[in-house]
């Protein structure tokens, strides 16, 4: 401590750390702090908050009829499916671009990233135009005579998961691509020289060395999908709620800020835990891939 403060380092660090720390303190920690504070305030069923500190809201979520547990489980399930499908599509895509993209790598990556440059809401509406009715896909299939009447592809649980995959897929491809691209080719050659088949090489060399990208991609897809509420609202027709929708319902419709805050704190805690697990499993590489 003495040595640290004895040096001039803090004086040099402060001007660089100062603005970003202030920014994070003001716009990340302060709002989270307010939410945590609200979550411990006792409130009645009408949302009237009284003075004091209590665990009543958390107890109610565990034991009451708020349906929060089911909404969380449903969100975890949707986010898990989203993550797995994104991984299933994203890994081969990233692998192929990294290994066989050649001089088209930049173009192919651009094509993957480009949709994510547009507004999130615009992409949701684009998807609705694509698969809704009237919509490009339905019109095309009808024109070809593949279907005789339009298929209802929106406003179902499947549509919600499909929407989440559509929105978050690019965020799985990028970290995996960076991981695969960063593998030293000498290691791959060495494995072949030692007699590994291409499949075995992938299993024992490529996959372990790209796990940082996989867990980095998981952080970037699973976590936003877990807290998403716009996709269920717009693609799911607001018929099936995820945890985010229930939180919004408690904050806005029921005006119960205390219960809504407790729900938000639990969801945030789950997200922090997941990030921790991903970093633990994916190692430093996972953090590097998402920064």
């Amino acid at each position: 401590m003495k040595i640290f403060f004895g040096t001039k380092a803090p004086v040099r660090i402060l001007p660089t750390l100062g603005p970003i720390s202030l920014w994070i303190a003001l716009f990340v920690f302060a709002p989270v702090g307010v939410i945590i504070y609200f979550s411990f305030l006792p409130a009645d069923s009408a949302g009237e908050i009284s003075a004091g500190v209590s665990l009543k809201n958390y107890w109610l979520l565990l034991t009451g009829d708020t349906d929060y547990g089911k909404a969380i489980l449903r969100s975890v399930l949707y986010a898990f499916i989203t993550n797995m499908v994104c991984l299933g599509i994203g890994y081969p895509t990233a692998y192929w671009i990294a290994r066989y993209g050649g001089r088209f790598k930049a173009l192919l990556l651009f094509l993957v990233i480009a949709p994510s440059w547009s507004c999130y809401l615009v992409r949701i509406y684009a998807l609705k135009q694509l698969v809704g009715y009237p919509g490009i896909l339905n019109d095309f299939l009808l024109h070809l005579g593949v279907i005789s009447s339009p298929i209802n592809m929106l406003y179902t649980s499947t549509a919600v998961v499909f929407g989440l995959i559509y929105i978050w897929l690019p965020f799985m491809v990028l970290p995996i691509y960076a991981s695969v691209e960063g593998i030293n080719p000498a290691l791959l050659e060495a494995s072949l020289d030692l007699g590994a088949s291409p499949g075995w090489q992938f299993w024992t060399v490529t996959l372990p060395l790209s796990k940082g990208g996989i867990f980095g991609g998981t952080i970037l897809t699973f976590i936003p999908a877990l807290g998403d509420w716009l996709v269920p609202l717009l693609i799911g027709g607001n018929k099936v709620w995820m945890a985010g929708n229930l939180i919004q319902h408690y904050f806005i419709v029921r005006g119960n800020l205390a219960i809504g805050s407790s729900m938000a704190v639990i969801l945030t805690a789950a997200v922090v835990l997941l990030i921790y697990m991903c970093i633990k499993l994916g190692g430093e590489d996972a953090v590097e891939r998402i920064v």
Partner: protein
Amino acid sequence: MFTYLEKKPMRWSLFASGLILIFAFVIAASPCLAAGQLKTYEEYVASIPKGCEPVPRECFEQAVKGKTFAMYDWAAWWPEELYKGFENLFGIKIVRDNYPDIDEALAKFRLNPKTPYDYWLTNPKSLHYMKEWNQLEMVNHDWIPNVNRYLAEDVKQASWDPGYKYCVLTTLGYDAYVVNTNFIDKKDPRMPSWKFVFEGGDVYKGKLVMRNEMNRVIGNTLKYLGYSLNSTDPAELKAAEEALLKLKPNIMSFDSWPKRAVMAQEVWVVEGVVHDYLALGSLIGPKNPFYPAYPPEGCLLSPMLVVIPKGGNNPAACHLFLNYLYRPENFATLINGVAYGHGHIQIEDLLTEQAKIWMTPPEGYRQKCEVLMPPAFTGEGEKMRASIWEKLKK
């Protein structure tokens, strides 16, 4: 000489450019120049149209001195000329803020009781809560002579605020349903009853959109079952829950303003304020495909009320605006623009035929309708409704 001749056209072009710039500035600034044309109270009194009355001097002077008027309302609904006309006449700048949802706006006031709006266009639920939280200014009746004169007597004593102490009614919406006649025969024997919505799934094949508002949807379900939409009877609410769960497979989505889906004719039946959809249907083509169904069981009546939050800086401007709005020609502009029901007694002759058709339910229909009242959105009533809504969204 040569130099002079060469420079001369240059100077002329500069002069011409300057003139054009000044002209463009005058054109652009003309609304601002026009603003504030009423400099004194006497000028204002002299400008009052026949049949209208001015606000008292005190109100006028306070409002004008405040310079700005903070409004909180729906975006893109009322005709813009109402706001522009007010600004131009009084030189008071309107600072508008919009909400996507009245409940969200209410949550904003709950979090910050000092939210600085002078005017909030809201509903009876918010009126109730804002009164309970002591966050509303009382309406000064001496400052709104046109409202006193032209607001219908029965509306002045309306259940949501007898004596219009805290609010002034602007529009009345009928929250029933419309069907797209390009796909649905309006002669279906179940129409216009709620039976068509709740039992006609075989006809509309899942192309039904319900509002994404708990109290409205459950309220209209209670109406279908023949109960009051403000019921707090657990058995009646249980029946409503069962009816809604049975209906759920036929619901395409819960959406309070499914404009895109309506315009694309993706949806065939919409539960909501009928006037909005009739207006929207007119944009689809020369023949408006929407047919308004006013269920004989009744429906939810949705009044939009102006209240004055306590956090505002210029409540006098709100009174001045209300008095201006209730001038018959201005109120007719509003109703011709939105085609909603209203409580103004002097504008019938000023309404367009189109607006009259879109806004008018069958004779005597209003008596069958109900406004959401506190039993529905407070205490056990609210709790039971929330429980139904959460089950519906599983």
